[in-house]
């Protein structure tokens, strides 16, 4: 069953991403990207990685996408459709995609907690994740943090008004 769910979720992720790329309206594109990221988060949950799933939702679908929306709103790109609330039909694809992901998540949770049999693979505790991350890949974390610092420096430098 889990395999079927995986393929459904993977399909949702791919469709969501394709719609995000082809969509002309940036806000709509971001919404599709959120649906895609949400289905990927459910895939991580399916793979016994609830922590990564939570990060995916909180950081990607949550924080980063809100930041995107914020920047788009701030730039105020001047759309003719601004002020017109979208028709319910425009909501339909995104809602359908999220609905599928949410349904899959519900099925997984019910299946896991409903059955008394212990699952074949246990999810890694946070302590173990942290140990792997900072002991085995500590240098990589340092390098990434430096890279993020310079992403900030670059954005500030190039964005500064003369």
């Amino acid at each position, binding site marked *: 069953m889990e395999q079927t769910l995986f393929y459904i979720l993977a399909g949702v992720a791919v469709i969501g991403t394709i719609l995000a790329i082809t969509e002309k309206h940036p806000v709509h594109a971001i919404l599709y990207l959120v649906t895609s990221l949400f289905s990927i988060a459910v895939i991580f949950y399916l793979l016994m990685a609830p922590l990564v799933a939570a990060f995916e939702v909180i950081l990607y679908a949550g924080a980063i996408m809100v930041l995107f929306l914020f920047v788009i709103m701030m730039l105020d790109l001047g759309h003719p459709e601004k002020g017109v609330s979208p028709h319910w039909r425009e909501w339909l694809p995104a809602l359908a995609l999220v609905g599928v992901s949410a349904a899959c998540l519900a099925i997984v949770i019910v299946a896991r907690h409903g059955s008394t049999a212990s699952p074949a693979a246990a999810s890694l505790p946070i302590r173990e994740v942290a140990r792997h991350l900072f002991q*085995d890949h500590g240098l990589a974390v340092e390098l990434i943090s430096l890279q993020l610092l310079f992403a900030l420096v*670059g954005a500030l430098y190039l964005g500064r008004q003369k």
Partner: protein
Amino acid sequence: MTKADMMALMPLIILAGGSVLVLLAGAVRPGGYLYGLAITVVVSALAWTIAVPATVVMPGLAITPFARFFAVFLDSAGLVALLMATGYNKRRGIVGEEYPATLLFALAGMGAACAASDLLMLFLGLEAFTFAFYLLVAIERDSVRGGEAGLKYLLNGTLSAAVLAMGIALVYCSRGTLRLSELARQPASLEPLFLAGVCLILVGLAFKLSLVPAHLWTPDVYQGAPAPVTALLSTASKGASVAAVLLILPLMAGWRGGHDILWCLSLATMVCGNLAALVQTSIKRLLAWSSVAQMGYVALAFVALPAGGGRAAIFYVVAYAAAGLASFGAVSILSDGSDRDAIEQYRGLGYRNPLAGAVLAVALFSLAGIPPAAGFMAKFAVFSAALRAGEIALAMVGVLTALVAVFFYLRVVVALYMRPVDGAEAAARRLTGSEALALAIPTLVTVVMGVYPSPLLDLLARIMG
């Protein structure tokens, strides 16, 4: 992390810490002294790498003689680029701490890429310095071309990063490990998934080396970026990418298809690069296409890997880097103030600015492979490795394209020493100390490597042995 690990990692720590230090110092008190600070940081990292011979393996990084050699090479290139940029940036109004800090970060990323012992660190190192170059290429905010070049490099670079990441994911998917030493142990038959992954990694690296057909960004980016940035982009980033390819190649050592892919890449790059360089009228674009062509010879050395090609590839890229730094450095001085870009405008500049003209001439001789410059020894090493490996057809193509290349390199030298059209021009300004040093170091390396190459070749034989 033990004390020995820290000692071995110190050059990387110095560079990374130095970049943050320069950022902080620039925030407190901006000024030209930041370049001096950055130069001090690079020199101390360089001195530490040479003075402290350490071999340490830790998760992600392995400080081996191979990594240390590349660290010395890349830090020297960074030093020359910084010396070059000191005066150039002041003249062009590129102020602020961003330039030296980002350059230091790029050097740290390159060092990490060359010392990588797993694919994750390799990817992060490669992306770290590519990322730094996104900013450096577009550092001249007033120039239209700079912004365009930055955007082109960014779009191409992110695509190649995606391909590289996908390849690494497929490799991990098929083997369950990212460690290069474990991946190099070949099972009886190679899985298709693993091969697909390695091929994607190779495509990603082909972009960084600008091997044809992943070279399209090269001329525009080299032309649009400030000359000292182009000097570093065309030498150090190529050097680090060569190291990355040499780390990846053992993964497909026993696979015939890998040889065929490299063979095609090498052929296409040598032919396209040299032919396209023939018709260029802008000197920066000519040097860009020449750098594409030069990477074709490095790819030829990769094809001949079993017959000592690794040694030839490193020797070639060091010789190319010396000539590349010297040529872009000379161009940045000769094009001084007015944006001289067409080859025609270089008429007679060899008389007006004798030192820079002579340096450019020597660098072009080296790129063309004319003895006694280093380029000749490098081409000789590559072709002899190719012949030992039995790649006679490819070596023949290499020799023929190198002959074609002599024409367009000499065209620039001839223009340099022709009488200027408008007779007497105002005498050139005197070179500053840092500019003279930035020209002298790579030129000396070019000449010494060409006349007396055996110490370096012996060293490389020990490293690759």
